[in-house]
């Protein structure tokens, strides 16, 4: 009979899976209490399924034994439901809060179990028609259903109530648990209560019975999942166990001694390799976890470093501002005249202070870039004004070195750019400042032009230049390359890096060319005008 065959397969499969799952939970769950309840639940579930199946199997030949067996299955029904309640409370860790409810659920669970087991008030007798088992219900059937419903509601109530206050991790656990519970309750209500009691449809009972597997399976997954011995390990173990059991069954089905021998060898070899496989998967996951932790630590350290740079720079700026202020006052004779021989040292001190301020600002910009704290204050501005302003500020330095320093711009005013003028200024300033620093004689030329929807800023000099190898690290942090390293050590080594970051923030491009060491260099900044056009459309 095909139906029995299907049933046989299902019952064996459920038994097999339940044992494996119970084993997995025993191995991986950290909470002893949950382990105990879960084991108990598995036992109840298997008894329910097996006794219910058994009663149908032997029903015709041994009606009394079948009735007895079915009764055991029915005693277990409320107990299983009760154990589900206690598992829920344990997973939620709310044993104290629902102390009174627990007592009530336990009382009704035992009461309904006793009622079914020791009286004939719930199940009066069983009949067989067309090999299907029909149960005659007694007068206590409705109270029995009432008590089971109570246990169901008592389980769902705290579950939903705590769900919304639970942490994200617990919540994702509870979701699996809920899916399992919902499937089980639904299947039971339909196939074990509504169909047989109200419509006399009895041959589908097994769907309800076997759905006991749902809360078990989902709960097992939820319990084990968090420990994240991960699905991968669980699946590996599951598969290894499954194959091992099948091999063992195959072993016992051997017919000849030789068959016993090679199947036995196969079984043990598989056990050894299976063990290796599981261990290697665990090792791989552990390693990945350790890497993840190490990475997080490094990331934190890096953030701490950046934060440290940020705070220190701020604290440095206070006294620096003061020194700069006082020096300016002295230089401008606010405190009265000073001997002429002090003029140069004072001016140099003032300039050094200015440089120090610039370095500290560079460091601050760096920490802001790395913390992702840079925000652009965008507005329309005229690029020529910015370049003129930089020219004025750097002209004294260029004159000091007798450099030809000039700006070339088109006669007609360039279209306005839309961006953060301070950041753009910083970027251009760093390039021009560098050009003057690294040029001993000759020229520094800054030119501006409009080209295909872009503003192109070109800074050409006859200075130190660089090799193609050096170009690769030119725009990196803390780089001072080739001759630049020898000539000037006062910079922070951050100027080009910051310029690149700021230009990129404006969706622009920055690059450099040089014919080689000592052959001068050209730096380019290309800024798009399209953002402006988009703005105008709006």
């Amino acid at each position, binding site marked *: 009979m095909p139906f029995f065959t299907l049933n046989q397969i299902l019952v064996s499969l459920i038994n097999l899976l339940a044992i494996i799952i119970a084993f997995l939970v025993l191995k991986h769950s950290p909470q002893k209490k949950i382990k105990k309840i879960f084991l108990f639940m598995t036992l109840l579930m298997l008894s329910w399924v097996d006794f219910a199946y058994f009663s149908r199997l032997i029903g015709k030949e041994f009606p009394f034994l079948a009735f007895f067996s079915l009764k055991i299955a029915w005693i277990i029904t409320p107990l299983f439901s009760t154990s589900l309640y206690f598992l829920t409370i344990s997973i939620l860790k709310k044993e104290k809060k629902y102390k009174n409810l627990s007592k009530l659920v336990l009382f009704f669970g035992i009461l309904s179990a006793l009622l079914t087991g020791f009286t004939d008030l719930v199940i009066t007798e069983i009949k067989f028609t067309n090999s299907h088992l029909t149960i005659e219900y007694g007068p206590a059937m409705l109270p029995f259903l009432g008590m089971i419903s109570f246990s169901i509601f008592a389980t769902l109530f705290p579950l939903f109530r705590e769900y919304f206050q639970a942490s994200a991790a617990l919540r994702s656990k509870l979701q699996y648990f809920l899916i399992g519970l919902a499937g089980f309750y639904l299947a039971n209500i339909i196939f074990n209560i509504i169909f047989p009691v109200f419509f006399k449809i009895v041959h589908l009972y097994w769907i309800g019975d076997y759905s006991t597997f749902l809360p078990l399976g989902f709960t097992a997954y939820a319990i084990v999942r968090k420990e994240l011995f991960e699905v991968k390990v669980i699946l590996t173990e599951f598969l290894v166990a499954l194959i091992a059991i099948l091999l063992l069954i195959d072993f016992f089905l051997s017919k000849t001694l030789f068959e016993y021998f090679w199947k036995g060898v196969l079984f043990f070899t598989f056990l050894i390799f299976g063990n290796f496989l599981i261990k290697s998967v665990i090792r791989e996951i552990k390693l990945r976890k350790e890497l993840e932790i190490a990475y997080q630590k490094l990331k934190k350290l890096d953030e701490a470093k950046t934060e440290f740079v940020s705070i220190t720079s701020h604290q440095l700026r206070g006294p620096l501002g003061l020194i700069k202020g006082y020096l300016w*006052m002295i230089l401008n004779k606010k405190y009265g005249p000073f001997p002429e021989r002090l003029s140069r040292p004072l001016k140099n001190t003032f300039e050094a202070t200015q440089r120090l301020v610039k370095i500290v600002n560079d460091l601050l910009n760096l920490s802001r870039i790395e913390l992702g704290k840079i925000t652009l204050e965008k507005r329309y501005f005229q690029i020529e004004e910015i370049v003129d302003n930089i020219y004025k500020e750097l002209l004294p330095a260029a004159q000091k070195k007798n450099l030809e320093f000039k700006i070339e711009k088109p006669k007609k005013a360039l279209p306005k750019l839309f961006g953060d003028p301070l950041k753009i200024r910083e970027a251009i300033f760093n390039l021009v400042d560098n050009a003057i620093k690294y040029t001993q004689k000759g020229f520094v030329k800054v030119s501006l032009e409009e080209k295909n929807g872009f503003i192109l800023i070109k800074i050409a000099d006859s200075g130190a230049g660089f090799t193609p190898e050096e170009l690769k690290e030119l725009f990196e942090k803390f780089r001072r390359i080739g001759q630049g390293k020898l000539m000037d050590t006062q910079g922070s080594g951050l100027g080009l890096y910051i310029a690149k970051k700021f230009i990129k923030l404006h969706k622009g491009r920055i690059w450099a060319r040089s014919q080689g060491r000592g052959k001068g260099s050209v730096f380019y900044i290309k800024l798009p005008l399209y953002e402006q056009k988009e703005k105008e459309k709006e």
Partner: protein
Amino acid sequence: MSKKKKKKNKKLKVLLIEDDNYVSQLYQDIVSFDTDWELEVIDSLTDLEKDFEKIKKINPDVILLDLILPALPKSKKEGGYILDKELGFQILEKLKKDKKTQKIPVIVISALSGEADKDRAKALGAEKYLVKSEILPYQIIEAVEEALGL
């Protein structure tokens, strides 16, 4: 150097809220060398309400406000003062909310140069925002004159 439009007989009164004595000395020097303004200094803040009353009493024409100021720690166990930029922002907010003080221009002079801090100060109603390490002394005087339309 400055010609006053409104108060012909009275000297211009500038209030400086700054905890660093070196800084206030420098500002005092600048003001005394280049102007005939009166500079009052509040160098420590402890109680927002009381301090605010003090400011009202002084009734300055313009306020120079530092943002990072010493604040009393929240729990007494810590002892001493903690430096907190929130205090500066709180004062600014209070100044701009109170009808008596909201018209007094406030120039923030701070070591903080972050855009977020600048935006916040401006949103609260600060007239100007100067970064300590970036300005030269004369720029403070310029800023005051600009804020008062002198």
